[in-house]
């Protein structure tokens, strides 16, 4: 019975290599509560990658350590974990993001994922934090600098490629609307 349970849990966990992201030393950055995930049994990775406008990205993942997390929560956890980086983490001059940047990026995940699909997080040795969407025919990334300013780059991977760029945005209604507008242009 124990063996069967273990095999079942491993089979459920197999499509994703999520275990490394679930560090027992979770980041101590306070993030908004995001409970209330839905359960589905469809292929997690395919759904994660398949549709730029997928709104149903809250999928429950069974992990070897029996944690139950959503993909969205994994993204938030990864963003929060950037708060564990220390100056010099990449080379001697590497900078770290501050808590307000992490909060802004985490808020952008919630604001944008329902319309544009769940983004993936990234951090830079320059201290900026970002999000990106990467598909076969289109790409978008967002960066949040130390002063809280937001920049957006989008690219339609057509021939010739079509690019858009906007910077100096803030986390407010106008800023979110501008990001939404650039992202919608990718689809049209």
């Amino acid at each position, binding site marked *: 019975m124990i063996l069967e349970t273990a095999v079942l849990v491993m089979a459920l966990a197999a499509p*994703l*290599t*999520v*275990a*490394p*992201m679930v*560090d027992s*030393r979770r*980041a101590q950055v306070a993030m908004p509560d995001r409970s209330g995930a839905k359960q589905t049994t469809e292929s997690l*990775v395919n759904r*994660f*990658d398949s549709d730029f406008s997928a709104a149903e990205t809250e999928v429950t993942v069974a992990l070897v350590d029996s944690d139950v997390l959503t*993909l969205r929560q*994994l*993204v938030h956890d*990864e963003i929060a*974990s*950037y708060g*564990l*980086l*220390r*100056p*010099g*983490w*990449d*080379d001697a*001059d590497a900078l770290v993001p501050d808590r307000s940047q992490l909060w802004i990026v985490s808020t952008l995940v919630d604001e944008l994922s329902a319309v544009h699909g769940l983004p*993936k*997080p*990234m*951090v*830079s*040795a*320059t201290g900026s934090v*970002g999000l*990106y969407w*990467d598909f076969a025919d289109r*790409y978008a*990334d967002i960066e949040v600098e130390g002063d809280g300013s937001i*920049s957006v*780059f989008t*690219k339609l*991977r057509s021939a010739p490629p079509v*690019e858009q*760029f906007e*910077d100096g945005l803030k986390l407010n209604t106008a800023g979110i609307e501008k990001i939404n507008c650039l992202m919608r242009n990718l689809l049209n």
Partner: protein
Amino acid sequence: LKSEKNPCCEFFDVNKDSNDIVKLLQKQPDRYFWERNCSASILSPGWVSSIETVARMIFTPHWNAIDSKPTPNAVEDVANKGLSVDRLTHVSLQYVHEQALLAEEKARDRPAEKPRRLEAVMWLRVERVRSVRVGEQQVFGVFDTALPENKAHADVCTMVIANKQVQRSARESLYQLLEP
């Protein structure tokens, strides 16, 4: 040009510790000539041919565990200090692997409560890297910046003078060229 006196070699030797070496390179009017005709290190086995493939080590946090791919910031060094790579025509895969493990050990010594792990070694084909263009201009150069401990070391640098949009576009282009 492989002598100690070649200007490319002098440039990389003088600026080897600068985190802005790429921006300094962009101010050199002969940088495109250097890239194809001059060695960037007296230790180099020769400048980088377009038929070569180079390897890039990927560490956390520049790795997305959900889709098991690097993040775009895995190539961000191309805009500032140069993206370190190993030339596979001058080094064995075994050596790259050993160097990767040594680099992981070194990375662990750096101050971070978030552990840094070696996640992957990705390939870049030099011909494809050199073929990226903004308008008519070649965006990236690959320089043979051999080191005493690693003669196969090279750096990929953004050669075109880049504003923020061009930098983001360049990063995305290079990111797209990473092969597992």
